[in-house]
């Protein structure tokens, strides 16, 4: 049994309660804010010595000095002389601890007087109620980090039932930017989840939205791991290696030549798939891109009409429409609109099929604008390249890189992908049973104030109902106080990295002691404070640096390609499908066609992934008989005049 490091004390002014107690320690004791301690009561209760587990939330230090002036006088006003005093003043280290657990749990009484011990690993398990989910045969623990204090190294586990449902779910991370906390923590936690997620609970995958910088762009590349991190990995039972299965998705740039991602270096394109959607995909989520002023009841009705009756259907000519239409792309939709409006103009009509001409103009304007606002993502041609809904694979990370996109395009991507994921999970045909969706910058997507956007409504829906489907939200933001309360409130687990002092001064953190808030404001890299349904108080842990290449290193090692020529873009896109393709071949095939036609052919080829890439790509072009150089007609040979021809013929 270890030596006692303190004694519980209580005074009338500072009494102990069932949820808080005070103790003093030697000056050199290894106790600090966040240290877990165990109190052994002196008097047995029902024949059992009570054990109380607590976490230090506040510390006080003072001497017997009654007034600072006494110290000044005692040293003749010279701080230097103070160092020569033969005796240090009597000094106390007094700590306040919040109760984590009392055993026996009933009757719940104020913490008794007793000796205080540093919690050993098994004490930590009991204190945090981890013993209930780390049982042999029913272990649902997911290591999240190591609690470290005074020589105790204890692995802290989250309960998968409360992290991924069904009991509770979702995880939210808060922390200042630039300290490798939020993204690193998620990367580490996903690695731990993929390693320790109980097999009997089924398969699991993750969809990560990379909304800024290159942080998530190199998850399949090994990163630098220090010795101390290796030890942590070993302790936590996770192999320090990058993710084995990662798929990247990114739309094209507005020009449509290169993928609009930090990961567009040729060496890394193997697992990068273009993300392109057509009219049908976008129209279902038009609400995302159109604000309330855009979509009144009339406009909504017209959009519904188009979705139901126009897109992908033969739409015959009528009194207004001059010709039959089959609308499959934005270009065709625009032609359809143009036809209607011209028809109305000719007949001086004000409405078509109950839709007023002003509404038609407005909807046309807004919808046709989408392909411009979301250029690179939305194709006029209608070509669709999407996430593999229905064939998601276990322990695979799907990264959707939207970092370089306009806000509208980001919203559209986010809304559609999450909606599709939800639909598939409802039908149980996504391919995996559990899916983690990671979204950073939640301040932006689910703000506490501001307009009620489609994206925010959807995030609220996931937060409130996702756990029943296996759809789990891992979210992150710098300012938790600015995120919608129902989103963070529904996150069963909350992680906190180093915090901004301004953020800590908001009412949401009032439940934390001043010392805990101070610790939060000064956390080192790799340290987190955790709140989890099983833990009655927040716990501080260390987690290892993710074993993947960090964004900055990756972008230096694999620089982002600048905008390239059309031929080079085609070569880059097709070569992963057929390494024999060369630039001269591409140049020869595409020389006669417009940029639009070439891009259309590329998109079709990438979508089809044919066996004979060259043949398929070539077949996408209309046959144009190449011009042949005009043959100079052979001039008839001039007969030579016989020298002896007297007539000159």
């Amino acid at each position, binding site marked *: 049994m270890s030596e006692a490091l303190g004694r519980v004390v209580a005074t009338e002014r500072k009494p102990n309660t069932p949820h808080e107690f005070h103790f003093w320690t030697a000056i050199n004791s290894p106790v600090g804010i966040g240290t877990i301690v165990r109190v052994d009561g002196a008097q047995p209760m029902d024949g059992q010595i009570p054990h109380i587990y607590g976490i230090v939330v506040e510390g006080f230090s003072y001497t017997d000095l009654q007034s600072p002036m006494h*110290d000044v006088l*005692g040293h003749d006003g010279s701080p230097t*002389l103070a160092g*020569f005093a*033969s*005796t240090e003043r009597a000094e106390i280290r007094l700590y306040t601890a919040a109760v984590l657990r009392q055993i026996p749990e009933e009757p719940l009484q104020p913490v008794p007087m007793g000796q205080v011990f540093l919690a050993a690993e098994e004490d930590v398990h009991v204190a945090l109620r981890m013993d209930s989910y780390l049982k042999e045969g029913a272990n649902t623990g997911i290591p999240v980090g190591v609690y470290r204090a005074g020589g105790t190294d204890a692995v802290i586990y989250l309960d998968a039932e409360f992290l991924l449902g069904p009991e509770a779910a979702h995880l939210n991370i808060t922390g200042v930017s630039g300290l490798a906390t939020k993204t690193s923590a998620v990367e580490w936690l996903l690695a731990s989840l993929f390693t320790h997620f109980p097999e009997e609970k089924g398969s699991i995958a993750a969809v990560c939205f990379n909304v800024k910088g290159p942080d998530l762009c190199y998850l399949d590349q090994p990163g630098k791991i220090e010795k101390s991190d290796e030890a942590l990995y070993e302790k936590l039972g996770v192999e320090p290696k990058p993710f084995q299965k990662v798929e990247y998705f990114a739309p094209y740039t507005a020009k449509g030549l290169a993928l609009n991602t930090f990961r567009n270096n040729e060496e890394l394109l193997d697992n990068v798939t273009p993300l392109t959607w057509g009219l049908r995909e976008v129209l279902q989520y038009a609400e995302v891109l159109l604000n309330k002023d855009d979509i009144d009841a009339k406009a909504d009705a017209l959009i519904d009409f188009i979705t139901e009756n126009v897109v992908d259907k033969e739409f015959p000519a009528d009194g207004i429409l001059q010709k039959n239409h089959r609308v499959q792309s934005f270009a065709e939709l625009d032609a359809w609109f143009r036809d209607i409006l011209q028809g109305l103009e000719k007949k001086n009509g004000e409405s078509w099929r109950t839709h007023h001409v002003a509404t038609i103009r407005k909807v046309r304007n807004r919808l046709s604008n989408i392909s411009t606002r979301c250029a690179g993502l939305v194709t006029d041609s209608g070509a669709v390249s999407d996430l593999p809904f229905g064939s998601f694979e276990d322990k695979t990370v799907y990264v959707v890189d939207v970092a370089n996109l306009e806000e509208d395009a980001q919203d559209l991507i986010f809304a559609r992908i999450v909606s599709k994921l939800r639909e598939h999970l409802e039908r149980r045909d996504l391919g995996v049973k559990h899916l983690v969706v990671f979204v950073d910058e939640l301040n932006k997507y689910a703000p506490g104030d501001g307009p009620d956007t489609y994206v925010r409504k959807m995030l609220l829906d996931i937060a409130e109902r996702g756990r029943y489907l296996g759809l789990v939200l891992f979210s992150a933001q710098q300012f938790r106080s600015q995120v919608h309360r129902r989103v963070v409130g529904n996150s069963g687990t909350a992680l906190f990295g180093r915090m901004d002092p301004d953020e800590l001064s908001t009412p949401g953190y009032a439940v934390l002691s001043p010392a805990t808030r101070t610790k939060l404001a000064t956390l080192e890299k790799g340290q987190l404070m955790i709140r989890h349904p099983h833990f009655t108080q927040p716990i501080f842990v260390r987690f290892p640096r993710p074993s993947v290449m960090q964004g900055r290193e990756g972008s230096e090692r694999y620089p982002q390609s600048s905008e390239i020529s059309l031929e080079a873009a085609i070569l880059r896109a097709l070569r992963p499908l057929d390494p024999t393709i060369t630039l001269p071949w591409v140049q020869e095939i595409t020389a006669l066609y417009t940029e639009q036609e070439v891009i259309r052919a590329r998109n079709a080829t990438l979508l089809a992934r044919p066996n004979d890439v060259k043949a398929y790509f070539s077949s996408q072009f209309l046959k144009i008989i190449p011009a042949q150089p005009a043959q100079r007609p052979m001039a008839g040979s001039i007969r030579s005049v016989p020298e002896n021809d007297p007539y000159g013929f």
Partner: protein
Amino acid sequence: MLVSSSGPDAESRAALRALMRRLPGVSVMEGGASVESRGASDPPNLRPATIIEGTALRALRVPDFSPEAQSGFGAFLDGTQKVQVVGHKVGLPIVIGTVSAAVRVRVDRRMTTWGDELPRVERKFYLPLRYLPALVELAADAAQANWQIVDTSTADRSGEYPSQHPTVLLERATRAVEQEREQLEDRMAEAWCARGDSPIFIDGGISRSKSVASSPLAVGVVKSHHTLYVEGDALGIVFGLRKGERTSVFRVSPRSRHSVMSWYLRLRGGEGRDPLWGLVRVEVAERERPSDRANEISRWIMAETTPLSLPDGRWDKLAYGVRDCEEFLRAIS
């Protein structure tokens, strides 16, 4: 020595209940009234002493003293006493006396309790058994128990018994508690002198115990000046000492005590204050070269003037280490 007050402990309350069973009609005083020590019973006096450093008492500056000077003391000793009147029986005071003493050693500039001789806290009843015959048997039983009874009505050296006057009996009890405290302090000091490894700063004189009075480790620092060991012009020298000055060394040989070397030392500037302010008398065992010894010890004592012992009212003379002993004893007694 500290006089403190707080209610009797559980053990004493149990003893008091037993006492009340034997002695019906005791009126108990709620909480117990603490009695301040009245100090020496003799009037303040002047007593000449033999000068052993030179031929006449002089004021001498302690040489080589600076604020950076280090103290040679490795430990401090002090005792406390508490006198509580917990009840009356027809006006006769029923007193509980608590005495305690501790040696606190200094390790790396921090004070800690000496492990060789643990602090002692002793509680006893002080009763005039002559006037409470019903308790005589109880006194014999109490000796078996954890608490003892001290008879405050025994005859003095001249064979006279004290009167039944409550004040007389209370003074007797107070004096008896004081003696208990002195004996306890002496036992602790003797233990240190036998097993200690560095000089000890003792609050008060050292002449009661032969072994302490002759130990090179014991240094007694007397703060009260009930008896001044100078007279005539020498008084002016003592009162005129400036900060960092001491008197010549003289020999103190009180009745029934042991002879020691002594000198006065002014710890703090006393301009505009009481002439005894910041003045202590130091007692050490007699040694050769008293000047060197007095200078060395004086430097150590001067070095103990920081940190200040405020808010204690005796801070001008009270070393912080002694205050630490008192605070420690207050906490455990």
